[in-house]
């Protein structure tokens, strides 16, 4: 029983084909709404948390406790004039923000969300190879950033794009290697070890306890992917004004802004799923979804704390850290995972 069937159950009077088609559409819309609401909540949380850390109050005039602040921001951004730079590369400039945004939303579609009371399993799309899907989709977002940087014909944007490419390339390999270790360990217990869902459901102990090194590497790689301090290379606001998004106005800029927070949330959910047990927990057959979100939000708060307290690392040191330290560490992690799997039979 999952949410697709549940919706179909409501729509079954329409017949099999139309019912399922409509159910799929409704499911996608629910996903979109869920992601948007979560992101708006996250940005609000970030503002409030940042204010708290910085001995301020944060938004509190618009709506109760400033809860409508993000709505006001969104409305304002919608109403802004859209400026196209004269010497832009038209197509890349225009599609780049959408690539970032839809890459993000697509990735959310493949996550397993666990159970929630009568709705059953909330997972949107099932796939036996969902891990490969997710990491393939994660590689789409940087393309949008690069297109934005190159397309806007601005030197700051170009340098931001170059920095973010260098960053992404150097952290991709350690990230994949640490995921590989998990897949290896999961393959001892399940035949579909590339499916995120079965990796989580068949685990005995959370993989973060078995592989603390893997958790560390993956966490750092996710910070780099989400691109916040100390790895906010693409934006580097005190050096490159606003990085690849320098020339963007209005809603297109908002898509980048959402993309930043979206990838923090996505990264936190991925870490929660892969390393700290995801939707597993007491009563997980009823409230697994809640567990996942709670774990995710705790990780989000940890990410915010790191963001607010770290200066930006220099680009050459960052690339060094990726290739010289994280890569060997993740190899060690891989070997350890092999030993644990084969030798001890975990």
């Amino acid at each position, binding site marked *: 029983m999952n949410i697709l069937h549940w919706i179909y159950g409501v729509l079954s009077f329409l017949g099999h084909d139309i019912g399922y088609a409509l159910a799929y559409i409704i499911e996608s819309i629910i996903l979109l709404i869920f992601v948007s609401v979560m992101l708006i909540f996250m940005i609000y949380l970030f503002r409030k948390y*940042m204010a708290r*850390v*910085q*001995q*301020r109050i944060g938004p509190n005039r618009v709506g109760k406790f400033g809860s409508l602040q993000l709505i006001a921001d969104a409305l304002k951004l919608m109403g802004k004039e859209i400026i196209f730079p004269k010497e832009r590369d038209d197509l890349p400039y225009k599609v780049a923000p959408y690539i970032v945004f839809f890459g993000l939303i697509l990735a959310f579609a493949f996550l397993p969300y666990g159970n929630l009371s009568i709705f059953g399993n909330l997972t949107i799309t099932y796939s036996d190879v969902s891990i490969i899907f997710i990491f393939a989709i994660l590689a789409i977002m940087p393309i949008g950033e690069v297109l934005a940087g190159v397309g806007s014909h601005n*030197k*700051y944007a170009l*340098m931001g794009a170059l*920095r973010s490419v260098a960053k992404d390339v150097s952290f991709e390999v350690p990230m994949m290697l640490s995921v590989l270790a998990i897949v290896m360990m999961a393959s001892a217990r399940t035949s579909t070890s590339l499916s995120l869902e079965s990796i989580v459901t068949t685990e005995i102990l959370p993989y973060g306890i078995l592989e603390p090194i893997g958790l560390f590497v993956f966490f750092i790689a996710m910070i780099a992917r989400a691109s916040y*301090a*100390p790895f*906010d290379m693409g934006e*580097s*606001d*005190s*050096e490159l*004004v606003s990085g690849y998004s320098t020339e963007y106005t209005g809603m297109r800029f908002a898509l980048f802004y959402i993309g930043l927070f979206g990838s923090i949330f996505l990264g936190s959910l991925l870490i929660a799923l892969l390393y700290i047990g995801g939707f597993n927990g007491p009563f997980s057959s009823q409230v697994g979804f809640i567990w996942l979100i709670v774990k995710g939000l705790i990780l989000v708060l940890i990410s915010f704390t790191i*963001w*607010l*307290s*770290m*200066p*930006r*690392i*220099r*680009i*050459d*040191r960052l690339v060094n850290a990726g290739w010289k330290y994280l890569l060997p560490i993740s190899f060690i992690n891989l070997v350890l995972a092999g030993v644990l799997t084969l030798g001890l039979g975990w």
Partner: protein
Amino acid sequence: MNDQWIELNIGPQHPSMHGVLRLKAKLDGEIIRELEPVIGYLHRNAEKLCEMGFYCDNLVYFDRMDYVGAMNMEVGYLEAAEKILNVPPPDRAKWIRVIIAELSRIAAHLVWAGAYGLDLGMLTPFFYCFAEREKILTIFTEACGSRQETNYMSIGGVYQDFNDKIIQEIKDFLETFPKRLEEIYNLYVKNDVFLSRTKGIGILSKEVAISYGVTGPMLRASGVEYDIRRAEPYLFYDKVNFEIPISHKGDNLARFLVRFEEMRQSLRIIKQGLEKLPEGPYFNPKAKKSMMIRLRGDGEYYARTESSKGEFGVYIVADGGVKPYRVRVRSPTFKNLSILPVLSKDVMLADMIAISGSIDLVFGEIDR
């Protein structure tokens, strides 16, 4: 000049240019090959306007030079102007000036520390620094009614006497601030990423520093124990005990540490100043408000004081009139900035930002 180099124009509107510095940079990838600072975007003609105003009026232009540590500028101008006009301030006014100038120095260093964090991408310490600065500004407001450009001192004394409330406020500040200062200090120096951005970056050697006329915390961070408060004492700086922090490293971190140590020493000076504050008049009766514009001066005087940025010199040439004939300001940041093209040759763009931040640029003073 290589074809592959990118010409990048940084500023005048740029987040980490501390105002209106413009840099013409030639970049080889991320590495800066050539750098040319362009200044003058805040040239407000202070020197010309000083020639047009009475001695007592000119203080406003000095307030607005180093606008983060305005009291030190006032001390610098009055050191010269009072000697030219022969109206020495009484002892109480001198001690008040010492206390206020040191408070102002702390405020200036706090602004620098916060802004330096922002330059490196560190968001939070800025707010802590500004929260502490607010407390100093509250004291200033109590003393003279203004926060930043105070115009507190005047020829022959100070505008208003210290009352018990101000002294109590300063005492409270002295009690609470050291703990907060250590907190802010730890936020920076216990952060590995901060250390990696500052340690060994922008090394300035002693000889180069002296030959380029670099002064203040930048010079002391390069290993020269030179502080005008000690070398050529003005006010009552020869009657207080304090140490001159120096470092031999000469890098960004050394400049950072020197400035923080200076804040601690300033606290010591304030404490001693409060103890030694004598009773008596707070202004020279020769410089009563009605008399002020009739004061005439002659001769020439070059007064050097230690502002929060370095050696602040005011050179006044007088011709016997009620207005100065020529006023020339030696602004420390102007000289300190001229070292930037030397320091940032063949460094990464990110390091250049870190170096220019560590110079402590204030444009009111550079462009005047």
